[in-house]
């Protein structure tokens, strides 16, 4: 895969190029031939050899973005997918910034919901220009010409010209800003399952990930060095001593260099760097909070719930409504840290030269990579060339590119290309985890069992505080609250509690702990959906109502939530008998503009405490569907990873730092634990929503609710390990 195209090399190519220029005020379509120094964000480039090349600015991490975004353009362009279309990863460029997120970043399930309309218009504009070019050539009305699979045809005279033949002439035309779009019935690719373009090279073992970048596959990296870092075992720990000479004696080690992130060992191969690191025998001081372990974290965050928090949202008078309610329910919940643990450990390769800096790697945030590299090298951003490879999973982790400065600092200091690799131990211990949360919810029901008040206090480790304190408003970090609450007009679309609650109060605290956190697939929608959907189940039980019925009763005006709940209920056979000893649970959630409901069926072994999930049925309403195959894969994938967090995953802390290091201690779900998964798409013409993260939030509460259904035990924390399940069964 050609990782990037520079403006210069682009201008050398003749043909028709359409770009989309994104500004804070919207976007406009531009013809690259019109404006010489213009760098559009999404390219559809037609050349005289009749090829259509698309440059995609979002990162490919298996979600199928290269395919889906190209399908949108190709469909509206009426290009021939099999014969004409070529797809390339774009570089870092301001114009690739997401119209809704304001950065070139692949997060927030935003690649399709953000680019659906601009890409359709970009394709349609190209088609309109090619048709116009043909009509002018033949001197016939445009209305008599039709674009069909890469060719413009004039039926009356039986003439036709290919896009390749027309591109030069079309490039001289003005770009229409509002070209006519296809009707859904005319879609050639969208809505039909298309094989992902990245699959064959991945299966052949030829796909290049960041960690694979070397002088064998990238020109100019000859003489590159391989680096690993000894990193502080506790938060804030500083090296007291280390044996530089011993490390430098190791064959292949070129340089030992302390940098702010740790002590770097640079060598001619990875194995030499690893041996050098072992030889360092670093002694570290105790760090900023040496007493911190798991019990410390949980205790502190539970104690936060007894303190007053910062007000997030208030509607009506929740306190009064609950105190006057016919029935009151109160419960506390805990969701611990989980690690991203992407299969490709973090890494970055940089080559700093006097007049340019090249950065290769798997990253989800080209804008931040570029800013960080520019800050270190003092080069202007247009001299920082970001080459995005395939990503060995992302889960949000690669959206914070703290792995980039290390490579840039070392390359700048050593004057050579340097690849920094995080070992698996580094990758887990020094992850920025999914933020842990505690919750205290009080709810009130009237005599008819209707929800009248909800008071919600939560404590979370702030995601934004360590990197952008300005993002904290009046003591509130909204990133921690998604799924419960978000700001008005949020670009993340509807990450709020869905229930119609007349009296609602939400407050939050930011836990005073040094643990670094960062969005993890679905961000905090997972840790917020868990208490909300478990508590709704508790309220339903208190009201003496069926959990599905109670949800529907409190979502009367929510068409899309109602639709997914009814669909999942029908498909899962909700209300029908289940095998003896099994339990069934339900949950719903909305995030990033999409709605889902899930039903989980499971058994609990009462002697071992082991949960076996048999089946998960999901219903999804995301509006229009671009590529249905990968969409279903994303839901399956979200459910699977969420089940891993529901049953197994919890980062261990000891002596002031993360103690989990590798997969022998940090357990991740494996094949035998994955249930049958059924995904049902609700046919919907509503606004298009995101898909990449949606599978996650509803799963853990559906499982916990099913455990209650099977055993009568309410477990208000995850992971539901055998030990925790057994303890809950005993204390029931």
């Amino acid at each position, binding site marked *: 895969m050609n990782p990037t195209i520079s403006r210069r090399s682009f201008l050398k190519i003749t043909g028709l190029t359409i770009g989309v220029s994104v500004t804070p005020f919207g976007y406009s379509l531009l013809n690259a031939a019109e404006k010489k120094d213009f760098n559009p964000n999404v390219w559809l480039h037609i050349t005289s050899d009749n090829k259509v090349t698309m440059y995609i600015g979002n990162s490919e991490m298996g979600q199928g973005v290269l395919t889906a975004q190209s399908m949108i353009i190709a469909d509206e362009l009426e290009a021939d997918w099999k014969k004409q279309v070529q797809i390339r990863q774009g570089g870092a460029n301001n114009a690739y910034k997401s119209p809704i997120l304001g950065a070139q970043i692949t997060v927030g399930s935003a690649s399709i919901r953000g680019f659906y309309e601009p890409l359709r218009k970009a394709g349609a504009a190209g088609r309109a220009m090619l048709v116009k070019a043909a009509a002018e050539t033949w001197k016939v009305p445009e209305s008599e010409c039709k674009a069909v699979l890469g060719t413009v045809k004039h039926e009356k005279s039986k003439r036709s010209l290919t896009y390749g033949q027309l591109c030069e002439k079309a490039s001289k035309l003005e770009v229409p800003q509002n070209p006519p779009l296809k009707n859904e019935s005319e879609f050639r690719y969208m809505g039909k399952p298309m094989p992902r373009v990245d699959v064959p090279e991945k*299966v052949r073992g030829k796909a290049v990930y960041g960690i694979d970048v070397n002088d064998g596959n990238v020109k100019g990296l000859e003489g590159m060095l391989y680096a690993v870092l000894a990193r502080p075992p506790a938060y804030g720990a500083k090296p007291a001593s280390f044996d530089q000479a011993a490390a430098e004696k190791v064959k292949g080690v070129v340089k030992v260099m302390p940098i702010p992130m740790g002590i770097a060992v640079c060598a001619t191969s990875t*194995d030499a760097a690893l041996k050098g690191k072992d030889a360092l025998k670093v002694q570290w001081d105790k760090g900023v909070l040496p007493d911190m372990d798991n019990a410390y974290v949980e205790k502190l965050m539970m104690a936060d719930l007894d303190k007053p928090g910062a007000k997030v949202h208030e509607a009506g008078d929740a306190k009064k409504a609950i105190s006057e309610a016919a029935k009151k329910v109160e419960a506390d919940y805990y969701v611990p840290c989980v690690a991203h643990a992407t299969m*490709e450990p973090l890494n970055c390769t940089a080559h700093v030269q006097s007049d340019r800096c090249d950065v290769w790697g798997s990253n989800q945030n080209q804008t931040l990579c570029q800013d960080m590299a520019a800050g270190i090298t003092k080069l202007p951003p247009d001299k920082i060339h970001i080459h995005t490879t395939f*990503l*060995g999973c992302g889960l949000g982790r690669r959206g914070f590119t703290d792995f980039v400065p290390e490579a840039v600092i070392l390359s700048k200091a050593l004057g050579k290309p340097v690849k920094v690799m995080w*070992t698996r131990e580094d990758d887990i211990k020094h992850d920025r985890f999914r933020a842990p949360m505690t919750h205290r919810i009080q709810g009130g029901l009237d005599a008819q069992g209707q929800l009248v008040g909800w008071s919600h206090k939560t404590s979370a480790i702030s995601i934004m505080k360590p990197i952008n304190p300005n993002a904290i408003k009046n003591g509130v970090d909204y990133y921690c609250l998604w799924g419960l609450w978000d700001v008005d007009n949020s670009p993340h679309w509807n990450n709020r509690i869905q229930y119609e609650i007349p009296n609602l109060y939400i407050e939050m605290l930011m836990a005073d702990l040094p643990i670094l956190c960062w969005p993890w697939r679905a961000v905090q929608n997972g840790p917020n959906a868990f208490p909300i959907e478990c508590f709704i189940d508790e309220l339903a039980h208190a009201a003496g109502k069926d959990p599905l019925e109670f949800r529907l009763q409190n979502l009367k005006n929510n068409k899309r939530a109602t639709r997914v709940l009814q669909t999942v209920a029908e498909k899962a056979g909700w209300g029908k008998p289940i095998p003896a000893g099994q339990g069934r649970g339900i949950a719903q959630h909305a995030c990033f503009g999409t709605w889902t409901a899930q039903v989980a069926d499971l058994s609990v072994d009462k002697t071992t405490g082991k949960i076996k999930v048999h089946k998960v049925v999901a219903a999804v309403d995301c509006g229009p569907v671009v590529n249905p195959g990968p969409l279903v894969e994303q839901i399956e994938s979200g459910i699977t990873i969420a089940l891993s967090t529901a049953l197994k995953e919890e980062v261990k802390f000891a002596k002031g730092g993360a103690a989990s290091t590798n997969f022998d201690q940090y357990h991740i779900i494996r094949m035998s634990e994955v249930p*049958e*998964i059924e995904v049902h798409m609700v046919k919907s013409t509503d606004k298009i929503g995101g898909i990449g993260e949606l599978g996650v939030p509803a799963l853990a509460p559906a499982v916990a609710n099913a455990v209650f259904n099977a055993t009568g035990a309410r477990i208000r924390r995850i992971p539901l390990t055998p030990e925790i399940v057994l303890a809950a069964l005993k204390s029931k």
Partner: protein
Amino acid sequence: MISLNVNGKNYAVDVSDDVPLLWVLRDHLKLMGTKYGCGIGECGSCTVHINGKAERSCAISVKEAKGKKITTIEGLPENHPVKKAWIQEQVVQCGYCQPGVMMQVAALLSEKPAPTADQIISKMDDVICRCGTYLRMKKGIKTAVQMTRKEGK
């Protein structure tokens, strides 16, 4: 110098005996299809065949691999049923773990051309896929078994 036979080719590499085969394949022979995932033989991303058996290249030293027939994902034929099935069933997502996964499956099928569900699980529980493509892997294995059967006829 250590001599290695990888994908039918002989190589001589200047490394010490104790270096894990994984790093020799990747850094010295530039065969980047074999992936580093954990370094302790827990995840299976680095799986290669040594004399036809699936082994974790991160947990085996280059000395132990010397003189044996090593096959990496690049050496698994393009028309191998596992590769074909993996494309047909669109098994991969990020794809990082999949070379190792496919090598694990290929070794399983060469030993047991029609494995039972339990035999599949007992081998496949040794690999980790963070994207959670396990259900697609099961489908891929089923398809590969059918393809092998048809080819055998």
